[in-house]
């Protein structure tokens, strides 16, 4: 026996480090820095990224490397805190800029920080509360994959996983980072068009999105992700050519413009923007609702077990948050949303305020479930689509008041983001053996912190350099701009109700088939451009092939760390790019 292996372990030690002040402070610090960077990148590029992987790496460095204290579980709390803080950035940067942009052209609109902050904090707490019973359902009963959660779990476990797995993780990270940097500096294309050289029309797209994160998510999902690919095939290789072939999109002959070279691109735009995407949103909603109905007995059992554990104060009670927290969180959020609605505009009546708070809470819970399911199955979040529906609902509930609709939309968007983020962190926590109660308490403790930071950064940028394509093309705020356009079209009464209702009926029907989450997966595939689905599908097929040829053990020891490395590599590269952009702009 060597000296190292014969070394004795102490039996008299301080309690195992988990929810510590160091984890909280380091996580909060990382979260605040990421929030600032992601608000900036969200205004510039129109998307943000999950912060859990980056936080886990930085947490290891700070807690273990610098403070010489961190345990695996403590680092899980650290990344939960960091991403809990940072999650607000996406919810706010997708929605609130719309209000700034509308205020630039309409003097009747002014942007007040307080209602937005109140609404976002309310949404944030509700997002975490809703997750309490859903954790059992999605992580313990349904065993959803949560590829990013698995990636973080793999990273957290790497100190004890052995040299081979560490090497595989490093290979994945290096490969993804290299390719992503080459794409960012335009030395490699973002997409590879295979269909064009083969002579396929644009209505039958065969384009692969160059993203190792999507590939990694597919590799981790395996056969469970195949319905998502089928959904993409249905939308883009079946409906799309049928719609074009049957003239459901006006043909060149119908337009009497035989020489119009831009017709094909325009047709695809109509097909995606007016037909498939809104239908996909409807399918997502119907599919999620069917999922709630189908899993109702299990959900009921989950809530019952939480209540029993709380009453008994036994083992379950110490690991899970009580169902009382769920009820208190929901009631508290209804109250906060009510006050946010009332302070958002003097035109809102008490009845409207109550309606907004109740409907907003219900929608947030359902949309949180949808986003958590979608990320659990594919790692792709339909956050913007769900927020869009949320803003639409709030617009009608507030009697067409754009300010109230956006302010409450902020709450919904932040809350939905919290649901998906918390669930991914809980999955990572499940893999390393963290106590869900402590993770949820950590998220409750800091869920509010990112909100004033993100709102503050937005106000600072608006008052210093401005944003929006007309004011500062460098910070075009694409999501906020799109939302402002939607608000305007809603004002003109142009919601695609037929697509939403038709889609919801399809989603409900898909929920009857004995494949869990089918509606959500197919809806998500219709909602997304096919290139993303295709890359993910390549990952799924690769995983199925490798499982058959190499066996389950090889998958666990080699493929999982490589795929996790893909996700981590791309996330880290994105964060560094955001930091560089932010520093350059400053």
């Amino acid at each position, binding site marked *: 026996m060597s000296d190292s292996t014969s070394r004795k372990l102490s039996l008299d030690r301080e309690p195992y480090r988990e929810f510590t002040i160091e984890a909280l402070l380091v996580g909060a610090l990382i979260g605040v820095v990421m929030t600032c960077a992601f608000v900036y990148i969200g205004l510039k590029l129109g998307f943000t990224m999950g912060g859990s992987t980056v936080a886990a790496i930085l947490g290891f460095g700070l807690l273990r490397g610098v403070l010489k204290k961190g345990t695996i579980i403590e680092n899980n709390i650290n990344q939960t805190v960091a991403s809990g803080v940072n999650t607000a950035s996406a919810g706010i940067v997708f929605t609130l800029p719309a209000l700034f942009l509308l205020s630039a052209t309409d003097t009747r609109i002014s942007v007040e920080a307080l209602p937005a902050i109140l609404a976002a904090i309310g949404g944030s707490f509700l997002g975490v509360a809703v997750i309490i019973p859903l954790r059992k359902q999605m992580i313990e009963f349904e065993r959803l994959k949560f590829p990013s959660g698995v990636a973080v779990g793999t990273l957290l476990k790497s100190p004890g996983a052995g040299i081979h797995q560490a090497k595989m993780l490093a290979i994945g990270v290096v490969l993804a980072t290299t390719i992503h940097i080459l794409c960012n500096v335009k030395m490699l294309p973002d997409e590879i068009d295979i269909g064009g050289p083969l002579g396929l029309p644009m209505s039958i797209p065969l384009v692969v999105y160059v993203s190792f994160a999507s590939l990694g998510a597919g590799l981790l999902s395996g056969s469970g992700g195949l319905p998502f690919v089928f959904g993409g095939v249905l939308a883009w290789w079946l*409906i799309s050519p049928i719609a074009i072939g049957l003239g459901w999109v006006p043909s060149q002959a119908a337009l009497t413009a035989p020489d119009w070279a831009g017709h094909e691109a325009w047709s695809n735009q109509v097909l995606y923007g007016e037909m498939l995407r809104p239908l996909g949103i409807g399918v997502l909603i119907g599919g999620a609702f069917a999922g709630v109905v189908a899993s109702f007995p299990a959900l009921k059992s989950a809530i019952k077990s939480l209540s029993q554990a709380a009453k008994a104060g036994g083992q379950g009670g110490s690991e899970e948050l009580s169902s009382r927290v769920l009820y208190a969180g929901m009631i508290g959020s209804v109250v906060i949303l009510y006050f946010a609605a009332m302070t958002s505009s003097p035109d809102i009546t008490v009845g409207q305020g109550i309606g907004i708070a109740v409907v907003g809470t219900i929608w947030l819970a359902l949309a949180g479930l949808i986003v958590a399911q979608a990320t659990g199955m594919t790692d792709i979040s339909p956050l913007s689509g769900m927020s869009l529906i949320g803003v639409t609902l709030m617009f009608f509930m507030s009697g067409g008041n754009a300010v109230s609709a956006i302010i409450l939309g902020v709450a919904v968007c932040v809350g939905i983001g919290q649901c998906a983020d918390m669930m991914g962190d809980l999955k990572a926590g499940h893999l390393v053996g963290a106590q869900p109660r402590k993770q949820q308490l950590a998220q409750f403790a800091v869920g509010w912190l990112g909100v004033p930071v993100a709102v503050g950064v937005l106000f600072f940028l608006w008052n210093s350099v401005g944003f929006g394509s007309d004011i500062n093309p460098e910070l075009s705020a694409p999501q906020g701009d799109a939302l402002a356009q939607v608000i305007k079209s809603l004002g003109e009464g142009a919601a695609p109700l037929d697509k939403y209702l038709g889609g919801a009926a399809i989603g409900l029907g898909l929920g009857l088939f004995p494949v869990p989450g089918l509606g959500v997966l197919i809806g998500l595939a219709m909602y997304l451009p096919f290139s993303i689905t295709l890359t993910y599908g390549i990952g799924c097929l690769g995983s199925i092939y490798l499982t058959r040829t190499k066996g389950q053990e090889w998958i666990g020891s080699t493929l999982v760390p490589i795929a996790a490395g893909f996700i981590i590599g791309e996330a880290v590269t994105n964060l560094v790019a955001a930091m560089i952009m932010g520093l350059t702009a400053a």
Partner: protein
Amino acid sequence: MKHLGTGLFAIGVGLCAAFGAQLSQPMYEMKKEQGQLLSYELSTLKSKYEVALKNAEGKDASSHKIPADPLTKDYTSQSAYLTALIAQHDEYVASLKRHSDAKLDALRRSWLDARRSALAQKTKIAFLEKPGPNLRLASWVTDSGAGFGAGLFFIVIGALIARRVKKAELTGSGTESGSGSISAVNVRVMVTEVAEQVGGLAERVKENQSPTIACADEIRQEIERLALSHFQPIVDARYRLQAEIGLAAFAEAFGPFSAGERNVSRAWSALVDEHWPEAVASLANAATALRMADQKLS
């Protein structure tokens, strides 16, 4: 039966999705108008302008400075911008010296007029009124409702057949082959086994009063072995178990099973972190939870 159910379901999904995606008539008309405006502007006006410019000035369009596209944010600013542009355009036309060649002069005027028309077209495109939600819904139901309804019917019938076949497969009463995972009976046996083995591990670590790194490595490897031999197969067989005992009973048993699994993982993490007391406590908790799961299943 399995293929029949899946086939009907697939046909239904295809029909529903296709008819669901079909544009309602008012929306189709609106898009047609938009396409006509776009194609007119892009093909006719642009080529007219390019030919005229080439003829008038001997330059191609790329060398000529074209004013930026008008704003499309809201109708008020759009109109103001457009009015200013047209005034600017009229001033420009007025300031032009008449060309000695009347034909060339006419061509110059024609491209300027074309540009003026193009700006007006762009405004029309930007502010085309979309049909309202109720009108769209009513029209879509009229045009696509039958195909969509037929698709929905196939979805429901196909799904019900598939559910029946799946249930028969999972409970082992069907004639068609199953998914290849372990049976529900074996799940019970495996849960009993894993509860006993984790209980054994918990006893071993508790009794070890002078643990070493080697002991920790050994326990860690046993946990990794259990993950592959028992935890994963039980998780893979969860749908079979659900089908046999029902969702509520499944949830009652799988809750403690998952708590046990999580505590085993916690013990693994504690061993990596060389925290023996936590590993002892976590394995004890895991054993208790797994015994509870075993009881629920039996």
